[in-house]
């Protein structure tokens, strides 16, 4: 078992060599970006049990922060003052994406974790919608519905080659894979630490967790910050991969897609969002050209219902318990 995950990563890394088809790589890259988003959401939804329906906001914040840093901007900030940022290298944009998302994750966490359940869900939805409105209407900064365009691709310093822009599909694919592996390892590290045990404890019984002295709000905010940071990184990858960002990144459907990935894959398991993310990230593209457009979403929906009906705890826990029963 301990080698299986690395074999899986090696197999994924070999795909561009074995299948040098740009379409396949493009589809896998986009699915990979959403898997990273699902991994980040799983930390909140799976391990703390708090359903954030504004998670796409961190993805969008990352996309905008990264795009704006690398494109530069020049805006009025009132009192006749202007804030001007010259175009910066893309790696700085990537870092800014993480930082900005973390900062907003902290703010939202401090605000929203005063309440639980439906109230928390509503605050997170509002958060994402407010950001969408800002992105739509702050035209001077975001170009509004005209979108930010010509976002440069990620460039990387490689030994012996200097700084190279990652323009080919295979290079981008490997970058997303690398970030995905890092995100996975970070979440695993956190979950298997003291903090992770505290999160699992408070998920199952918050009153008991508080009564043994777990600083519940503090740990929830920590989880929100890390989760937001990873989602921001995914958003940054998305922006530089697509080359364009518009306010639609804040749309509810992105968050819902991530929730579907986490829930069907198995929330609160490390591999759940990876498996769910790959399945529901790839289904739309696998169906394209094979089924009529109207039918595609019907199949998507039916597949989702079947998973939830027959594997209510998710694919990963379901398969694990099946294997255990066999053994």
């Amino acid at each position, binding site marked *: 078992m301990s080698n299986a995950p690395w074999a899986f990563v090696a197999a994924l890394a070999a795909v561009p060599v074995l299948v040098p088809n740009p379409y396949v790589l493009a589809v896998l890259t986009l699915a990979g970006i959403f898997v990273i988003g699902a991994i980040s959401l799983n930390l909140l939804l799976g391990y703390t049990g708090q359903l954030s329906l504004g998670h796409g906001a961190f993805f969008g914040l990352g996309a905008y922060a990264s795009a704006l840093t690398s494109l530069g901007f020049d805006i009025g900030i009132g009192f006749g003052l202007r804030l001007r940022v010259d175009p910066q290298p893309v790696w700085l944009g990537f870092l800014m994406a993480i930082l900005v998302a973390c900062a907003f994750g902290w703010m939202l966490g401090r605000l929203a974790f005063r309440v639980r359940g439906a109230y928390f869900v509503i605050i997170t939805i509002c958060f994402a919608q407010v950001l969408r409105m800002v992105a739509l209407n702050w035209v001077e900064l975001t170009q509004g519905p005209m979108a930010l365009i010509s976002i440069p691709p990620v460039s990387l310093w490689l030994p012996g080659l200097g700084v190279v822009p990652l323009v080919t599909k295979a290079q981008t694919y490997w970058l997303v894979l690398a970030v995905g592996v890092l995100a996975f390892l970070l979440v695993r590290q956190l979950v298997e630490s003291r903090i992770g045990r505290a999160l699992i*404890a408070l998920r199952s019984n918050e009153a*008991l967790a508080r*009564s043994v002295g777990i600083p519940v709000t503090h740990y929830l905010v920590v989880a929100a910050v890390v989760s937001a940071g990873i989602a921001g990184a995914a958003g940054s990858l998305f922006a530089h991969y697509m080359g364009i960002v518009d306010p639609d990144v804040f749309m509810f459907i992105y968050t819902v897609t991530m929730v579907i990935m986490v829930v069907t894959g198995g929330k609160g398991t490390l591999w759940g969002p990876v498996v769910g993310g790959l399945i529901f990230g790839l289904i739309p593209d696998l169906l394209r050209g094979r089924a009529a457009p109207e039918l595609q979403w019907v199949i998507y929906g039916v597949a989702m219902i079947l998973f939830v009906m027959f594997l209510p705890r998710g694919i990963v826990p379901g398969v694990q318990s099946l294997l255990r029963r066999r053994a």
Partner: protein
Amino acid sequence: MLRLDGLSVGYGGPLALQDLSLEVRDGELVSLIGANGAGKSTTLKAISGLLKPQAGRITWGGEAIGGLSPRAVIARGIAHCPEGRRVFPQLSVRENLEMGALLRRDHGGIAADLAAMCDRFPRLRERLSQAAGTLSGGEQQMLAIARALMSRPRLVMFDEPSLGLAPSLVEQVFAIVREIRAKGTTVLMVEQNAMAALQMADRAYLLEAGQLVQAGTGAELLASPEVRAAYLGG
């Protein structure tokens, strides 16, 4: 050493607890008895910091602790063994025990206490790496008690320790509570089984509808006609 003076606590509606004053002295076993909704659990939650008092004072060894966080209260030596779901089902038995020692930093002492708990409750040793949710009800209660002791408290508060347990286990749990007190830890216990609670207690308080109606030694309350009529079946 623990004193409540005029404590009132509410959940946002009418007060669940009104103007309660009581004290628990060093080394005592004190029982709170009363019907459902009398305010017994509310009292414990207010002491442990899970609920904020609306009025009144809670003092512990002279220090006002009303309104402190649960974390701060445990750090001062008060452990709370709440009612209902008593353990963290997804965590292992060992992790549950370690949760009890969350605020301690003496790793050697924690390991020693963990071993001592396993000696005291051999069933737990056999199941150390098993998820606590797979234990039987009785085993979960033993685990909850052991977890509370892992913080090395000077005062342990038990909320309905016998609730939902088979009669033979109830006797066992009460024996453990007596043993804890015999070893010098002060005990404040909420219990529906009034007969057992009064027989064990040095002193006891009877609550009704959020108010204190009677106080005295365990024997006095056992002999009281009102208590006999209402709680001991005549």
